[in-house]
């Protein structure tokens, strides 16, 4: 029985990395919690026996045993909180993985255990069912989550100021001539720099209908 050690290690692992679900540590933490529950029960039973033994009309727990009982109770709550937090944080990460499937640069992907894979699948199916039943014109809720385009995706653009003079061949092999006011449908990778500089503007659905 080590007061709160396994719970602390679980949370430190959460902070350190996106490692897989640590079944061993979770089991150790649960075992520790159960040991505290047993110890608490034994101490309360022993204290109750002493209490009955000292018949003075008002049964009271001995003062000397109260700190230990309170400590066991605090350790039980502590382990419970660590276990619940560990699982809650991992669930948040799994849900985030669904909503933001593209990882940031240098970000370690979250490794999932078998039960977590099942949860992610069930979560995806839940969202798909919701989309099909309530928003028939929406294939994927994530498409409306405001994600920026992938490098290989094509985007609709309007030319604000011509970034080059005359026709130009882009890195993807597309040949284009930029005229002010013209609309093009080009790979994002080729035009990102011009968009950032303000020469081209990405169009939304409403602007396309203008």
């Amino acid at each position, binding site marked *: 029985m080590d007061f709160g050690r396994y719970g602390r290690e679980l949370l430190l692992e959460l902070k350190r990395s996106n490692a897989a679900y640590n079944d061993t540590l979770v089991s150790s933490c649960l075992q520790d919690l159960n040991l505290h529950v047993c110890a608490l029960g034994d101490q309360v039973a022993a204290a109750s026996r002493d209490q009955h033994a000292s018949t003075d009309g008002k049964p009271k727990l001995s003062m*000397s045993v109260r*700190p*230990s009982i309170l400590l066991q109770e605090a350790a039980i709550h502590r382990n419970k909180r660590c276990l619940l937090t560990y699982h809650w944080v991992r669930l948040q990460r799994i849900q985030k993985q669904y909503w933001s499937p593209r990882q940031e640069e240098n970000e370690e992907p979250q490794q999932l255990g078998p039960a977590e894979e099942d949860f992610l699948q069930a979560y995806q199916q839940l969202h798909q069912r919701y989309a099909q039943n309530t928003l028939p014109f929406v294939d994927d809720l994530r498409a409306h989550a405001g994600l*920026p385009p992938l490098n290989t995706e094509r985007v609709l653009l309007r030319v604000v100021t011509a970034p080059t003079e005359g026709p130009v061949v882009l890195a993807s092999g597309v040949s284009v001539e930029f005229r002010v006011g013209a609309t093009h449908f080009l790979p994002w990778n080729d035009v*990102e720099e011009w968009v950032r500089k303000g020469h081209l503007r990405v169009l939304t659905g409403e602007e396309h209908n203008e």
Partner: protein
Amino acid sequence: MQTKNYFDVDAILAEEELVPCQSNFDFSYLSHLDPDERPGKRHYLPEGTKFKVPVWAVEKWATLGFVKLSLPRHFGRKARERIEAGEADIRKRNERFFIAGKRLGDLLDNYTAHVEKAWRRSGDSDQRLLELIKRESAQLRRTLLSAYTGQRLSQTLNWALSSVGDDVTEYTKGLTELERRLFLLGATSASSHEAWKVYGNGRLLPVTEHKRTIRSVTPDLQAPGNKRQRIS
């Protein structure tokens, strides 16, 4: 920043801070808490023993007056003076220095409030000790506030909002967890702002299909003072 969330990992880890205390009577079954205790010699912790326990373990004892509390060394008076002078590596003392410090301040305030009430009822009193603890708690809070909101805060915000795309490892490695959270929020906001300038700079236009519907209702459009006419 919310730190009272049940699932806040940093708040939970901050409660691991060891608090020096002294038992006010014999504690049964807790002889192992005495750092000088030889195993098997006793089954209780004697009155007056000095030992250290985490904040989460001592909270209930403190409110019931089972122990006397004091501040950990790196939250004590000399350490606070060094922090206020800007000479201390705060993260090295405790990665969750500000969260743990606030937690300790709350613990001391609870302790003094409950003990004072109990002593008033029983007629006992050690006002000098209580005043000392209240003063320590107030000074600790002042130090935490001045350290967090001083130069460190302005530097953190400056770096967070102006370092989009830069390597900030050198700066962030000296920050406590609370400051890192603040930094991350600022950096995320700055990146989102940059992304908005690129992807979200279009004008909002009225929906064209609605316009076509209005135009098709010709007789009503001719009537004077008609709302549809005004809209078209």
